């Protein structure tokens, strides 16, 4: 063992991870199991989970892919707040016990893995792609569509969405209304409608102007608070409300 590793181990603090354990296929009641993990500065919750799986319990399930906040796979409830495990450092949480649970508002498959099918279905409903009325042009574009910086600015922040589901899990309306489209899908309806290259605004209006669409948003703002990419879905929803009321495609923000 190198002296550097030794120093790290000496500096390590022991943090207890209480992790939600449940297997839908077995149908037993969920439980929390505790694991002690040596933690050093810079370690993330995902590092701790990988440590647990490698050293303490290989049966624990969680999603992971990029490990750098881009893929959106490792969303979970960390000390009651939806966060990405790969972006959440342990020591700044200032807690001796860290509780990990699956994202709320999603059915649990196993442990920290949730079923995101319904979430992606809602996402698809709002036609999250650039739509051209000319179908031939849609399939075989003749050239590039140029945008001014102002036109880009109109939707840019909403284009950073990584579909991790944190906003959806934090939303109080999604918790009560299972049919509510949710902040992610609604903000994406705005993202594409506000894009100067898109002509699908009128197609999206009937989807979002629904008893379980835009108008059920209470503007709690939890979606914007938890977004790991700095997207403001609550703002997008308000802007989409304005566009639907006026019946006009959103214009670049001033």
């Amino acid at each position, binding site marked *: 063992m190198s002296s550097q590793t030794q120093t790290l181990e000496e500096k390590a603090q022991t943090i207890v991870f209480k992790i939600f354990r449940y297997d839908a296929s077995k149908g037993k009641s969920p439980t929390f199991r505790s694991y002690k993990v040596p933690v050093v500065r810079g370690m993330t919750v995902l590092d701790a989970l990988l440590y647990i799986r490698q050293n303490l319990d290989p049966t624990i399930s969680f999603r992971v892919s990029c490990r750098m906040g881009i893929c959106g796979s490792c969303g979970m409830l960390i000390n009651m707040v939806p966060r990405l495990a790969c972006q959440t450092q342990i020591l700044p949480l200032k807690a001796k016990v860290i509780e990990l649970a699956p994202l709320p508002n999603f059915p649990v498959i196993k442990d920290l893995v949730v079923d995101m099918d319904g979430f992606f279905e809602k996402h698809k409903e709002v036609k999250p792609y650039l739509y051209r009325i000319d179908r031939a042009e849609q399939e075989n574009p003749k050239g590039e569509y140029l945008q001014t910086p102002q036109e880009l600015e109109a939707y840019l922040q909403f284009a950073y969405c990584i579909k991790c589901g944190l906003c959806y899990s934090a939303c109080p*309306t999604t918790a*009560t*209304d*299972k*049919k*509510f489209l949710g902040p992610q899908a609604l903000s994406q309806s705005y993202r594409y409608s506000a894009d100067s290259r898109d002509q699908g605004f009128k197609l999206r209006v009937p989807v979002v*102007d*629904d*008893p*379980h*669409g*835009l*108008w*059920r948003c209470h503007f709690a703002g939890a979606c914007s608070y938890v977004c790991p990419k700095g997207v403001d879905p609550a703002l997008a929803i308000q802007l989409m*409300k304005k566009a*639907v*009321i006026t019946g006009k495609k959103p214009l670049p923000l001033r």
Partner: protein
Amino acid sequence: MRESTLWLAFMISAILLIGFGAYHILYFGSAMLSIPPGQTYHEKISYELVHERAKSLFFTVMYVVFLAVALYHATYGIRSSILEFTSGSRKGKVAVLVLAAIAILAFIYGCYAVIVTHLMAVGG
């Protein structure tokens, strides 16, 4: 009807409620606080004055509109809660229909009270 139209009407009703509510409160509140026109609260709700006001077409129309606006606003709010908590189930849809029926009945009853009072005051 489009959901956005219902929501817009809900917002407009909120603004109107502020106006109607403010007028209602200030009219009677001014009497309570002995602000001009100088009558006391008890004078203002006395039978004679109520009878006098009931003759006014302005008061009659205002209270019918006030009633409609308040009922719409309240009904839309309750409908939103029902839609949210029932996720569009059949029970929820029935509850919304029952709610709409109650609101319509309440409006008819309220209009009846206001209009009959007006007609009695004008006639008598």
